């Protein structure tokens, strides 16, 4: 990550067709970026995202991705 | 075929449709004085996807255990509604969850629509009892078993800690249906 990237916010994409609402991404996000909206994961605090990709890595359903 | 009363509960796996079917059958056959047969079908994975439970109620022996001409069908999801409404007989009843089922199928049957899951969430804080609400509604709408029998059947299937919750859900079902009629 370059220093200037701190300014550019990441893009977090949840595929609502694929998300099964297990909340694993929410529970394991180290900076509490995500929340459950009903039975779908959603972004609540994009600024805090560190692009660590853990949400994607642990999502069992190919349902969330974080782009730079 | 005339003395058969056929009910189909449909929704998605995990919504408790099979339990609703079982309780309905018990209400008729154990707590009522009828005969009943309950069956279901799973997808090949036995979970996920559309699921249905059927109850045939009759005064006499019941041979064919599956629905042939449905008197009353419940659909808790759009997928189930679309997939399973085909066997409703003319003059039958289709009860759908109004929030889930937006495309109402056409047919010579009566369609009733009610926010079943929403009611469970709002009135009781638990969507898990939506199936019990729907059961109450079906019982009330069809009159094929008495409300007392249904209540006995529900209470015998439910763990003690949840007796109250389920009793309430059932009452809500009875009442909501009465209003819809």
């Amino acid at each position, binding site marked *: 990550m370059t220093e200037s990237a701190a300014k550019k916010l990441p893009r977090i994409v949840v595929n609502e067709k694929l998300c099964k609402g297990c909340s694993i991404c929410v529970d394991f996000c180290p900076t509490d970026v995500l929340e459950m909206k009903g039975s779908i994961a959603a972004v609540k605090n994009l600024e805090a995202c560190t692009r660590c990709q853990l949400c994607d890595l642990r999502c069992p359903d190919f349902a969330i991705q974080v782009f730079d | 075929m005339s003395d058969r009363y056929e009910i189909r509960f449909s929704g998605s796996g995990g919504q408790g449709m099979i339990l609703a079917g079982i309780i309905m059958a018990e209400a008729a056959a154990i707590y009522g004085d009828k005969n009943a047969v309950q069956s279901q079908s799973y997808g*090949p994975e036995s979970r996920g996807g559309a699921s249905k439970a059927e109850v045939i109620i009759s005064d006499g022996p019941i041979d064919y255990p599956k629905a*042939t001409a449905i008197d009353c069908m419940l659909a808790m999801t759009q997928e189930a509604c679309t997939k399973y409404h085909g066997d409703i007989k003319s003059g039958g009843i289709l009860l759908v969850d109004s929030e889930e089922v937006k495309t109402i199928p056409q047919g010579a049957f009566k369609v009733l629509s009610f926010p079943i899951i929403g009611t469970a969430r709002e009135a009781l804080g638990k969507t898990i009892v939506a199936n019990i609400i729907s059961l109450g509604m079906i019982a009330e709408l069809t009159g094929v078993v008495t409300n007392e029998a249904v209540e006995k059947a529900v209470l015998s299937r439910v763990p003690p800690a949840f007796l109250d919750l389920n009793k309430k859900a059932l009452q809500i079902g009875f009442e909501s249906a009465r209003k819809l009629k």
Partner: protein
Amino acid sequence: MAEKKKKLLQGNEACVEGALYAGCRFYAGYPITPSTEIMEGMSVRLPKLGGKFIQMEDEIGGIAAALGGSLAGLKSMTATSGPGFSLKQECIGYACLTEIPLVIVDVMRGGPSTGYPTGPSQSDIMQAKWGTHGDHPVIALTPSTVPEILTETIRAFNLAEQFRTPVMVLYDEILGHMREPVTIPNPGEFAVEDRAKPEVKPEDYYPYDDKFLIAPLAPFGSGYRFHVTGLNHKQDGFPTNDSKVIRENNLRIMRKVDINRETIWKNEEVMLDDAEVVIFTVGSTARSARFAVNELRKVGVKAGLLRPLTIWPFPDRAVAEISSRVKAIIVPELNLGQMTLEVERVAKGRCAVEGLYRVDGEPITPSQIFHEVRKYL
């Protein structure tokens, strides 16, 4: 009182009730859809009755352990479905030749191969008879209602114990998973048979004593020390290559079922007396057939139903008798024509024999049968 014991049970749950009623005290198996509820039920219920339950590493282990349990003197059972039934076949032959009582339940699902695990089928009927190598006696029962699953499971245990042979209970996924009200019988309501125990002293005991058609079987550990082998053996249980003894023994194990077939056979007959077309079928399909027969009678068609509760030994006599006085026998089955072959064989061309097959994971409906019968009239 009686009402208190009326329960809404799944077919597989009724099978558990029947087994326990019959005195089953040993279960070993491996889970497989759509029979798993039997195993689950036994795991909960058996320990309460002092019985033994074990989940084995595979189906072969399941039937082998059940045979061990039976040899040790407990009435034993295993249950499975298609692929597991195939795996158990080698041991089924062993049970036949060594004459160890056992009940094997096969809840039939769509095949071949993994096929359609949650779909109904009746395609293990021939496998039940011919699945293992070598000629061997086969008894297989085919209930068609949930209460009947209970009673036929009792009958299976009784036959297994009386005839010292494995007995199969075959029903399809629909019956295994559907629920019907069942009245649990009181003790004494149904006869319960136990295998004959030896009356001679241990030193005079032969496990295959040729004085008997069916010799008494002493349990292991009871002081009767004897030998059991799957090789062709003499009356004392030891291997032989004396061709006369081999022949006699191979014929005797067939004969014990064959000459008793009248008592093993069990048919339900619905409006056969004046029937012009008879439906021959079993299991859930028989329910559609009965429905259809009633409807056909309403429109004046002389239809009848011959429903075997014992499919093996095949009800030759009943079919032969019917075939000489009807126009046609219709054989609806959830397979591609297994019982039909047997009906054809027995009918010997005396009447038309027509199969009505379905292998798409759906039941044969009453109206399919209705229309098939009408073709003949």
